């Protein structure tokens, strides 16, 4: 199952009157991967997710979910944790999970068994008879996560899954997501927490103004934005190094910006060949996803605030 395409979005657009929220977007998500859906506020992420879930219809383009067009039957094979958090305040936690689990096609008995198992796992067992309105934001967040995943979906779409969670609960949810991924679930994670994307996602899609800006394996994207710089810790003094256009001390070592066409391997050889220098650490500088995000859409972020389509 892993590697099979779970979601195939081809040339999808969505127009609201004069505004084109999504423009000819194409991407695929595979079983057994965590796929990062990134973009500034108002970029069209939520619109894209709602089109995938058949909450709204695309103006043009095609979406294939779990091997074909979205059907009512397939809704039971998809999980969703929306950005807008909300459960029925006047229901108890267990009743809420039984209700939502059954809506996803589970029998009452199975829904109960799964709900009880998940509640123990996310440490909400003691709160099972508590009303939603009496639960904290973090508990509510975990409850909603359980509601969206207890039917063990083949495709899971989660929007900001870690917002409002403390480090312990973040770890619990992260472990659950990784386990689901390993079981073959295709997971689309939309978040602004770039370090989580770097930790968990294999591939990403960055959209801005409804258009695809970056798409592909995370390593490829990083490579694309690599700064051709290295960080070196060494014994000895350096004034000038051949092939290095800028040399700056950093954390007891140096950061070196390489000249055009100079490869890190060549620089390493040059340093090793220097008799008065002993190389202790040589590391290519990885451009962080956050840097890439800011570099690509940084200027537009502030302009787009509050325009989430």
């Amino acid at each position, binding site marked *: 199952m892993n590697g099979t395409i779970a979601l195939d979005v081809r040339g999808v657009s969505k127009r609201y009157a004069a505004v084109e929220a999504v423009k000819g977007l194409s991407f695929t998500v595979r079983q057994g991967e965590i796929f990062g859906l990134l973009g500034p506020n108002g970029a069209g992420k939520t619109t894209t997710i709602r089109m995938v879930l058949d*909450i709204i219809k695309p103006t043009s383009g095609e979406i294939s979910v779990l091997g074909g067009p979205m059907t009512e039957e397939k*809704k*039971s094979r998809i999980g*969703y944790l*929306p950005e*807008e958090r909300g459960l*029925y305040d006047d229901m108890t936690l267990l009743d809420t999970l039984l209700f939502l689990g059954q*809506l996803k096609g589970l029998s009452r008995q199975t829904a109960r068994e799964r709900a009880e198992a998940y509640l123990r796992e996310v440490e909400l067992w003691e709160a099972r008879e508590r009303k939603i309105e009496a639960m904290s934001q973090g508990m509510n967040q975990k409850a909603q996560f359980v509601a969206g995943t207890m039917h063990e979906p083949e495709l899971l779409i989660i929007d900001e899954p870690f917002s409002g969670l403390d480090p312990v609960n973040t770890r619990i949810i992260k472990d659950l997501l990784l386990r689901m991924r390993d079981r073959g679930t295709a997971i689309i994670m939309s978040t602004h927490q770039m370090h989580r994307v770097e930790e968990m996602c294999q591939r990403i899609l960055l959209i801005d103004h409804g258009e695809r800006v970056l798409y592909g394996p995370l390593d490829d994207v990083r490579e694309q934005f690599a700064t051709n710089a290295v960080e070196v810790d060494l014994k000895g003094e350096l004034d000038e190094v051949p092939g290095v256009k800028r040399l700056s001390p950093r954390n007891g070592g140096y950061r070196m910006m390489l000249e055009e066409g100079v490869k890190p391997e060549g620089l390493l050889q040059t340093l090793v060949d220097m008799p008065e220098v002993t190389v202790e650490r040589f590391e290519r500088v990885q451009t962080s996803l956050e840097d890439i995000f800011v570099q690509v859409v940084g200027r537009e972020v502030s302009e787009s605030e509050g325009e989430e389509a």
Partner: protein
Amino acid sequence: MRKSWLVAAATYRRRVRSSAFLLLTFGLPLLMVAVGAISILTQIRGALPPVGYVDRTGQLATVESVPVMDETLDLTPYADVDAAQQALMDGDIAGYLVVPEDYFEEEAARPTFYGEERPNARLESGLTAFMRQAMLPEAPASQIERLEDPAEITFVARQTGERVAQGPALVVRFATPALLAIIFVFTVFTSANQMGSAVVREKEQRAMEMVITSLAPRELVVGKVLGMMLLSLTQVGVWMIGAGVAIGLALFGTLSVQDLSIPWSAVLWAVLLGVPAYFLYAVLGAGLGVIAGDKQQARQLAGLLGFLGMGPLYLTGAIINNLDGPLSIGLTLFPLTAPTIALFRMTLSDVPTWQLAASFAIIVVGLVASIWIVARIFRAAMLMYGQALRPRQIVRALREA
């Protein structure tokens, strides 16, 4: 349909436990039963006190006691009002009846009762029995008893063979359709409001986005409406049981079950027209809740819908004046007024079966169309938290579906 039932059950369970629902559902019938109980308590309170009478006609026979249900009313004749008044002040009697001199001559002349308190129903009954016996002292008891209701007529309809006895049974026969119509109007008025508020609350709780990825908007709308309908049925059921008990207590001893003549065809048509029409109102109420931005706006829109439901009550006069006129027939065929108008017409005349059947068909078609439309508006509006849907957006929602 399974998912609609799940939504209905969850909706029902959530609301049936709310304190507002419990208070409204059980408070009203408890009040009704209490009123009925007070009525019966006043009847069975203590023994009948002795009373006196003054016969100014000089033609009444002396009567010292008369049977009243299972008791006896003791009477003392007095020569004049002063003597009777003295006995009253001495506490010998609870009151006295003065029969005027011209009682047999003028229709307007009536006996007058003077007492410490207003006589209760049993004492009134005893005084009436006294007058009958005092006027016909030689007549056998059976004749005197018959005089109480000398012409209890049973009406038989030649066409249907329906038999209805005069008196309370006749009132039941003709009041039932009107009562059912009023129950329908009342239920529709309250539930349209509740439905709109429930949908707005659903939007406010922001649970919709999660729920809607599990079932079709049509299933969600049907489930919500079914749940609310079950709630209303529970409420009306409790109220009707309460009303039945209260009426039973109030009419205790005056009307037996065998005397009742329930017009079953009216009841049948009330169900056939009322249930889908109620459903239609609830779906429209849900639609207005979807369009509304907040609870206040939902209540205002539901008020308009409720006004439509109440409308026939304002037209009663025009309809009674011409039971088979174009207005009556037109409103019988209009789905939102059909149950009320048809039942009102049944109170006073027979409504042709074709009109009732056509009305049923139109309501069902209207219901299916409403579910279709509301489900599509629902899809467009459910994620617009705190915003009202503009007419242009409604048109677009219908077009894009």
